[in-house]
């Protein structure tokens, strides 16, 4: 650059900065036309103009300039050219970034013009109109307000709206299904299990005009209903009982959320309340409901590498944002993590605004206050205080015991090691380093929560804060709470401890300067919660010169750990009164802990930070590429919550939940009624149930969807009310028999000219098998049952069970569902593992399914049970057994052909073979 140019540019900028751009060139829209546009035209329009708008950026129109590109970067920050992406790109020194990528770069003078223009407010022609047109809006159908169509037939709206579509295609509906088919359909759809023969015959013979309405009421009132429909919701929110990723540990208390779902659905909890509880249940007295937020996979392997840790956290938050978006709003928010959404009116900024709502949410277990005995709540706080006091008393007494001279001089005179507190005293010795070598532990890799080394002035010289350095043979990887730096951080307790990476190990403290030491105190968990991993055999050495160790203490002269884990030997060193006090304190502590455990029920649910870190928009979603701070908010296109950047954590979620659960939100009700439709008819009116955006499909019956959505809100968000309407419709009650003429027009039956038959889901098939075999255990709630053998290691391993006992004969919603595993029988039936949200299941048909349903030990066992049941209930005659079996399986008697061939089957090959066959029949595995 020539000196002259440098000078003129400097002058130009100086002028701009002072805000007094030379009078000849007022920086207004005319300035843009005269000075700026020619530059853009010459250098930018080829790629960012009318012909092609790379990265969706157009610089040839005012709208395009104000909008910027799809990266989400602010092209112009009015008044701040240095912050403007446009300037960053045209001045970049990085050859991959600098714009234009080919051809002549902008001269300094041209850049100066752009800067001056931006610094003076970046005026463009027709700015007001352009800005107005840019105010994010959309004409996409699902963002428009719900419009209840006027329907003449009151009470028959669903049928009227379905019929209108059928007629438009020249189609007619099918006649009503017979009662036996209908009751079986209602039970399979609503309960996921067939009706009993008695229930069938009662309904078939019920002559009252409202027999069917009564049936629907009965079905909706049954607890089996909540079990069935909770399972659907668990697909939508990627529920599972393990963490996923490589360690895939169990979440033994996640079931509280599952039980919450079942209870809520059975109680017909209003859906708006249901939403609010799942997002912010901690504010509504339902902690368990927040299991929703943390039901997804979660990587617990952490690395010292900060990039990875930050990315893991971003992935966790993305899981929450995405699941909230898809489950409640039918919006794929996750697509806007790296750039503005390519199809929907969702800005990248919106994604981070919603991320800010969840910024304080963490995975883990928490106390479920509603389940922890209500009256015990205040008491629990008191118990904690009491516990601390007792602990203090005990520690004082232990110190006293340690300080008192030994009563015997026997070799093993010192008390056994204690998890709580151990002291080593020795003649003052000079040292620059102390090494603590653990030769054996009470079990597992040894743990130290703190190692204190006192000099002759009584100061702890091991503290990192005093310049001491800790090293170790190795540290158990992957745990933030177990780190080497915790050894000498002055903080005690398991959560601030070091654990070796093997069954033995050493730690070493190097002092900054030579010290004269005489006492060492160490412990495994001074908070008294853990007593495993205790160093039982050890030696402690000191050195002045590196490597020249000499012993100063060891476990040699300690008594072995006795039957009583903490050992009472130390009590002998106390006065009688003190010993009594210590014994009492110990006993009180045991009793207190039992009381505390009883008062507290823990569950896998949201854990909330009091004040989360600020959320930034991340350029391309990269954690290290922080951009502007983003306040918690909802979607720009649908309004704003008006929250502050520092909004209290809980309020963020409360406000988002209220916004989602509002009658004005155009998406919420539509998405839910569509799910109800989908799980009833097999396909939703919108067949992309968690994507109501532009990339999803449009509803087959938009008026019907809106009618249902409006009715849902009007009735007070009652799910059962909506289901009653659907079940009572003639549309639902149609026969499923195919008609060639109609199939020609609408093969999939999306227009509902019949009830579309479909294969049942894995859970419904297993539940139905157990129901008909008589093995089913209807115990509700509580910890799930395992279909896997578990091998516990750092990384968990799961192997499919081959033998099943009654504990596993509960409904499959109570299965302990483990990510990355598929059940050996039912996995092949498209049973999801909770690895990702599954709003719509595939319905595969494979030979493996046939093999599993034909040969697995589960099936042969159930076949035996069924054969026994048939004999027990119908007697030895094959004819009677066949009659009962058909009623159990299909809710109807066999026809003559079926009867004949079935009886022959039992006669020739026995009851179990007959039973094995029935489990494999299409009529049993499908709903018709």
């Amino acid at each position, binding site marked *: 650059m020539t000196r002259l140019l440098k000078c003129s540019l400097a002058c130009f900028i100086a002028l701009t900065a002072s805000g007094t751009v030379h009078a000849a060139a007022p920086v207004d829209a005319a300035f843009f036309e005269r000075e700026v546009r020619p530059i853009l035209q010459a250098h930018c329009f080829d790629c960012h103009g009318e012909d092609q708008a790379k990265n969706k950026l157009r610089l040839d129109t005012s709208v395009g300039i104000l909008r910027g590109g799809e990266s989400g970067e602010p092209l112009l920050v009015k008044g701040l050219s240095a912050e403007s992406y446009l300037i960053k790109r045209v001045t970049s020194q990085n050859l991959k970034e600098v714009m234009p990528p080919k051809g002549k770069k902008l001269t300094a003078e041209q850049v100066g013009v752009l800067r001056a223009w931006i610094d003076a407010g970046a005026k463009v022609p027709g700015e007001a109109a352009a800005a107005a047109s840019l105010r994010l809006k959309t004409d996409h159908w699902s963002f428009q307000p719900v419009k209840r169509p006027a329907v003449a037939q009151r009470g028959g709206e669903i049928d009227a709206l379905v019929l209108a579509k059928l007629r438009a295609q020249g189609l007619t509906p099918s006649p009503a299904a017979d009662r036996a088919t209908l009751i079986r359909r209602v039970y399979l759809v609503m309960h996921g299990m067939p009706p009993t023969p008695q229930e069938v015959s009662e309904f078939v013979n019920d002559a009252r005009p409202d027999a069917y309405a009564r049936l629907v009421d009965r079905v909706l009132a049954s607890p089996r209903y909540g079990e069935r429909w909770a399972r659907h919701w668990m697909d939508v929110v990627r529920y599972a009982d393990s963490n996923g*990723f*490589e360690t895939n540990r169990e979440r033994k208390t996640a079931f509280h959320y599952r039980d919450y779902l079942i209870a809520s659905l059975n109680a017909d909890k209003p859906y708006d309340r249901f939403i609010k509880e799942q997002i912010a249940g901690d504010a509504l007295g339902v902690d368990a409901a927040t299991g929703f937020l943390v039901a997804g*996979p979660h990587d617990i392997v952490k*690395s*010292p*590498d900060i990039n*990875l840790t930050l990315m893991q956290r971003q*992935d966790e938050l993305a899981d929450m944002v995405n699941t909230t978006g898809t489950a409640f709003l039918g*919006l*794929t928010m996750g*697509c806007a993590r790296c750039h503005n959404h390519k199809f929907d009116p969702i800005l990248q900024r919106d994604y981070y605004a919603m991320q800010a709502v969840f910024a304080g949410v963490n995975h883990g277990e928490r106390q479920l206050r509603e389940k922890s005995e209500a009256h015990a709540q205040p008491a629990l706080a008191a118990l904690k205080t009491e516990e601390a006091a007792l602990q203090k008393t005990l520690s004082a007494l232990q110190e006293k015991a340690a300080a008192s001279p030994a009563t015997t001089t026997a070799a093993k005179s010192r008390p056994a090691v204690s998890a709580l507190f151990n002291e080593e005293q020795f003649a003052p010795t000079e040292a620059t380093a102390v090494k603590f070598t653990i030769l054996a532990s009470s079990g597992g890799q040894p743990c130290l929560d703190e190692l204190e080394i006192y000099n002759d002035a009584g100061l702890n010289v091991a503290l990192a804060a005093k310049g001491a350095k800790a090293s170790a043979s*190795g540290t158990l*990887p992957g745990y933030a709470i177990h780190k080497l730096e915790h050894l000498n951080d002055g903080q005690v307790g398991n959560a601030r401890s070091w654990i070796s990476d093997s069954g033995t190990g050493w730690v070493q403290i190097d002092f900054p300067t030579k010290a004269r030491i005489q006492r060492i105190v160490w412990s495994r968990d001074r908070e008294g919660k853990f007593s495993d991993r205790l160093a039982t055999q050890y030696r402690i050495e000191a050195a002045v010169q590196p490597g020249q160790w000499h012993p100063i203490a060891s476990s040699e002269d300690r008594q072995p750990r006795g039957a009583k884990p903490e050992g009472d030997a130390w009590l002998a060193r106390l006065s009688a009164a003190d010993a009594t006090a210590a014994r009492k304190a110990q006993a009180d502590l045991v009793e207190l802990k039992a009381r505390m455990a009883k008062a507290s029920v823990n569950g896998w649910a949201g854990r909330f930070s009091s004040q989360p870190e600020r959320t930034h928009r991340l350029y391309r979603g990269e954690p290290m590429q922080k951009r502007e701070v983003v306040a918690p908010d909802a979607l720009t296109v649908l309004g704003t919550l008006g929250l502050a950047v520092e909004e209290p954590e809980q309020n963020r979620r409360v406000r988002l939940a209220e916004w989602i659960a509002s009658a004005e939100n155009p998406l919420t009700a539509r998405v839910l009624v569509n799910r109800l439709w989908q799980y009833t008819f097999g396909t939703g009116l919108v067949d*992309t149930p*968690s*994507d109501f955006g532009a990339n999803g499909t449009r509803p087959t019956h938009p008026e019907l969807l809106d009618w249902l959505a409006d009715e849902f809100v009007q009735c007070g968000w009652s799910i059962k009310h909506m289901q009653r309407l659907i079940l009572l419709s003639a549309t639902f009650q149609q026969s499923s*028999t*195919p008609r060639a003429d109609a199939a020609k027009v609408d093969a999939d039956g999306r227009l509902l000219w019949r009830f579309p*038959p*479909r*294969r049942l889901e894995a859970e419904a098939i297993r539940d139905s098998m157990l129901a008909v075999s008589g093995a089913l255990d209807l115990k509700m709630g509580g910890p799930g049952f395992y279909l896997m053998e578990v091998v516990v290691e750092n*990384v968990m*391993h799961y192997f499919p069970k081959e033998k099943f006992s009654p504990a596993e004969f509960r409904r499959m919603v109570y299965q302990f569902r483990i*990510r*990355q*595993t*598929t059940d*050996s029988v039912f996995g*092949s039936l*498209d049973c999801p*593992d909770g*690895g*990702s949200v*599954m*709003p719509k299941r*595939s319905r*595969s*048909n*494979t*030979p*493996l*399914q*046939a*093999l599993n349903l*034909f*040969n697995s*030990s589960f099936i*042969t066992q159930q076949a035996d049970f069924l054969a026994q049941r048939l004999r027990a209930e119908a007697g030895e005659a094959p004819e009677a057994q066949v009659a009962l079996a058909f009623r159990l399986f299909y809710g109807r008697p066999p026809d003559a052909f079926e009867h004949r*061939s079935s009886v022959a*089957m039992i006669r020739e*090959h*026995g009851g*179990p*073979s*007959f039973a094995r*066959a029935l489990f494999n*029949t*299409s*009529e049993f*595995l499908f709903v018709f």
Partner: protein
Amino acid sequence: MHPLLNRRNFLAHTATGLGGIALAQMLARDAHAAAGPIRPQVNPANPNAPRATHFPARAKRVLMIFCSGAVSQVDTFDYKPELIKRHGQPMPGAEGLVTFQGAQGNLNQSPWAFRPRGQSGKMVSDLVPHLGALADEMCFIHSLTGKTNTHGPGENFMATGYTLDGFPSMGAWTSYALGSENDTLPAYVAIPDPRGAPQSAGNFWGPGFLPAAFQGTDFNATQPLRNLARPAAFSAATDRATRDFIGVLNRHHLERFPGDSELAARISSYELAARMQLSVPEVADISSEPAHVLKLYGADQAGNPVKDLKAAYARNCILARRLVEKGVRFVQLFNGAYQTGGEGVSNWDGHKSLQPQYLKHGEVMDQPTAALLADLKQRGLLEDTLVVWCTEFGRMPTFQKGASGRDHNPNGFTAWLAGAGVKHGFSYGATDEFGYKAVENIATVYDFHATILDLLGLDHERLSFYHNGIERRLTDVHGHVIQAVLA
């Protein structure tokens, strides 16, 4: 300017002397690329029926050999004289470097010497001499880079293109795209190591969000396919009669639902299952293999735990060859397992004592894998089978501080391809002078996946499945076919 000339790939091609035919192919593909996503049309009645490729394929099927635990590139295929020269010195520029398990010690040369192998003179270490002898068959990629240094996500990434759980594996994508050419065997078979499953096993051969029809079926030479055999409680005659009876009831029921393809498909799936009950045990039964074959693979060895293990893995290798022979579309063969011991005990995760652990793993993996490759070649199967050898990431050229092993390193690692459609005796890309970071022709796992799909005649940018709002791809929104490795 011709649009083709915009493509940096084109320049790479002209530099390597690309012929006119390949150019025509590229033009044909460009015409394709202009179009939208391709969702294979799957007939629910026969989900594994063969389906058309997007363009002519070079490989009909894939054998993927996955070594679990992260094989060290600097102890096997990535020869670094500078590492040997600077053995025991700190790695320049690595002060304060923190990797997965923590701080780094000094550069450490491999305990195994490297020697030139074959015509190509490729330097391969003495840890894998049998594989080294086949270096002329291999097409090495030395510049692979990953996104994570943790095993689970790393294995997810190599298996599914995503570090997260819940995505379909490459084999599932392949069977979804292409179906199978053998209707009596599964389209996609995973052969777990005799020691157990790798980390994230479910994701390795899982269907993710694809229909369960496309998941891998797992069995090996010792663990038969689950639920394949007739239950002991039923005689063969009863079993047959029961199956017939199911057919009778289902066909009788179908009369009430004429033309229902889902119901008809169920009936045929039982017939297919019956055929599988014959064909799977047959293909898994390697007792018919002659002695010289068992010897070639090392399947006849025994006498100590390592040899037993080697023989068991060798039997899996023979099974892999038999499946390839039968036209199974995607065979995934595993070496190493987390299940019976992580941190290098049963897998390649040599953090603390690399030499003794790798001695064992090398012994187990080398000869059988080499025999598999040689056997495929000898039978002409490499003509239309792509062999892929890979691992989740690489290892450090340094030893961990205070230990005698190497920490995780996703910044530069090695995989090799062999067989249909790829160059042989060829090396692509390079790491720096120590083998730490890829510096030349840096390739991502996305590129690796894109290349494998390309060899199968599939455009990775178009093969898609709609899930939850997104047209999902194996390669997400990334990936470029590594044209330079294509023959």
